[in-house]
């Protein structure tokens, strides 16, 4: 279609003729009559199963045994417990809940996340992390200009908006969780803080695989921050990123990125001296200015990475550094970055990534 637009004709789920819906209804009735048997079978089958993993769909009967307490993701009708989401059944003592396959991000302590400031409040920022609630970043949990040993004063409270304002993106670590499940963040490390020099893209949080390291230097002089919450930041690799990723005494560069995940990153280079920290903790860490030297090639590479990440998400492939690189390499077959948004292209990139993994023998 000459590359202007691609239009796919699809047939919807509700495109049934009248007859077929009738048949469906009949089937439904059958099921509801024999619900008990099926449920029994399921439970017994489930007990046999070693992993104990039972996948249910919304409206599916989980159990008819009233002894179970009903947790999240379930509802109760006539002494029977049904699932309200698609996901895995979890049983903790007497509590029965269904953990959804896809849901809003639920934070866990230690997660490396990317968030967007939603609100500046009293001594705290509220940060949108794609979860059920906004996370909280206390004024006391950030590095302020002037170094780590500086006292917080009232003037800091008054100029909070000059550090971080609405819309600002930052990466942070989940420090702790509140009673209601909302997260408290901190950015007290040089690898956290305001994000610059790049572009944002978002994928479902369920696709991000939790790993030791979530900041990766990629080929093409690009660094990616894969937030566990599915928020992703792609930026031009900075000097800091190179230092962080360099193996001690080894050569720097993109080729080392493969090893870096295996090696003890973080520990070595993320402990700069206090003086260094003071240097970095100037006002510059809250600057809104981008590096003026971002070339158009870097910008194009960032676009390409953003598109391949979206392609991986489209194919529901978990996103890791290896896969992003492998998808990037596969995408090189398409010189025009814009063609990567087409459905067929995304599918073929997904296939390529999985094939490469199979050939390497590490596919599960």
């Amino acid at each position, binding site marked *: 279609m000459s590359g202007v637009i691609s239009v796919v004709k699809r047939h919807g789920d509700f495109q049934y003729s009248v007859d077929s819906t009738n048949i469906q209804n009949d089937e439904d009735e059958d099921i509801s009559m024999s619900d008990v048997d099926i449920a029994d079978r399921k439970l017994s089958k489930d007990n046999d199963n070693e992993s104990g993993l039972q996948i249910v769909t919304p409206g599916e009967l989980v159990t008819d045994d009233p002894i179970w307490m009903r947790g999240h993701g379930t509802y109760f009708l006539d002494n029977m417990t049904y699932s309200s989401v698609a996901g895995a059944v979890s049983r903790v003592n007497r509590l029965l809940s269904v953990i959804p396959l896809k849901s809003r991000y639920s934070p866990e302590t230690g997660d490396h996340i990317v968030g967007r400031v939603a609100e500046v409040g009293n001594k705290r920022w509220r940060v949108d992390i794609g979860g059920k609630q906004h996370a909280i970043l206390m004024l006391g949990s950030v590095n302020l200009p002037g170094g780590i040993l500086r006292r917080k004063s009232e003037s800091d409270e008054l100029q909070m908006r000059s550090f971080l304002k609405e819309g600002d993106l930052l990466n942070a670590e989940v420090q702790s969780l509140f009673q209601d499940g909302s997260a408290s963040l901190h950015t007290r490390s040089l690898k956290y803080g305001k994000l610059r*020099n790049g572009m944002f893209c978002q994928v479902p949080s369920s696709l991000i695989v939790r790993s030791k390291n979530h900041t990766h230097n990629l080929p093409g002089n690009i660094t990616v921050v894969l937030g566990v919450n599915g928020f992703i930041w792609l930026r031009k690799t900075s000097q800091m990123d190179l230092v962080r990723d360099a193996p001690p005494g080894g050569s720097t560069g993109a080729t080392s990125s493969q090893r870096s995940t295996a090696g003890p990153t973080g520990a070595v280079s993320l402990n700069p001296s206090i003086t260094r920290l003071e240097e970095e903790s100037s006002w510059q860490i809250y600057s809104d200015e981008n590096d003026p030297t*971002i070339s158009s090639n870097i*910008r194009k590479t960032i676009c*390409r990475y953003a598109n391949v990440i979206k392609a991986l998400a489209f194919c529901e492939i978990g996103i890791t550094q290896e896969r992003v690189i492998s998808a990037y390499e596969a995408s090189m077959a398409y010189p025009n970055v814009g063609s990567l948004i087409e459905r067929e292209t995304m599918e073929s990139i997904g296939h390529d990534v999985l094939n490469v993994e199979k050939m390497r023998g590490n596919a599960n």
Partner: protein
Amino acid sequence: MVLSVAEKSYLYDSLASKPSIRPDGRLPHQFRPIEIFTNFLPSSDGSSRIIASDGSECIVSIKSKVVDHSIENDLVQVDINVAGERDDSIIVETLSSLMNKVLKSNKGIDTSKLQLTKKYSFKIFIDVLIISSYSYPASLISFSIFSALKATKLPKLVSSFDDLEVEELPMFHDYDLVTLDVNPPLVFVLAIVGDNIFIDPASNETEVANNGLIVTWSNGKVISPIKTLALNDRYINGFNPLLLKNGIKLVEQYGQNIADALENL
């Protein structure tokens, strides 16, 4: 969507550079892919649902009624609903005013195609529901209306065309349907950043656009309404008059491709 200052200036610099680099790498005339479902509403004469790749979604239903066109001269009625917006909100009123102008102008829907007999015509009701939209939905709506009208099938007339003398109501065939043959105009949204102009801006592009254009296209020609459109209130600014011409040329050049793509599914 709120973007950070650094994000905006990065996007602006990318889009304003020569040649422009769009955040998803598209060419200036390239649209994002869309998915279309047609004729899924059993109770309407024609329907369509478009889902854009960013998750924007729009449903259009076409219904018809036989009216005496000597009394009722308004043969097309457009009604727009946006989920989460009141009927008197600015976005809803602006869009419905725009779509009414697009479809009811003399270059819009050819009302002679709706005529049944010398006395009676079909009046068509176009109901638009925007379920979600992440960028200005004018294009989405017009594409949906276009594909819904192209998919519309109306009952076949069996009584005679000349009914001025005889007092009879039009009679229709029991099950034969005729495809409605109209060519509704398409509406294009363009964004201007610096000295660049491009079609179908995504939400992050609209955030940094200096200005926007709405351009209407029908049968190979750009027609009115054409107007500027403020896509945000931060970056809005004046633009070089030549960009207006370039934008119109861009639509003139690629309008037919879009119409073909929507028609030949």
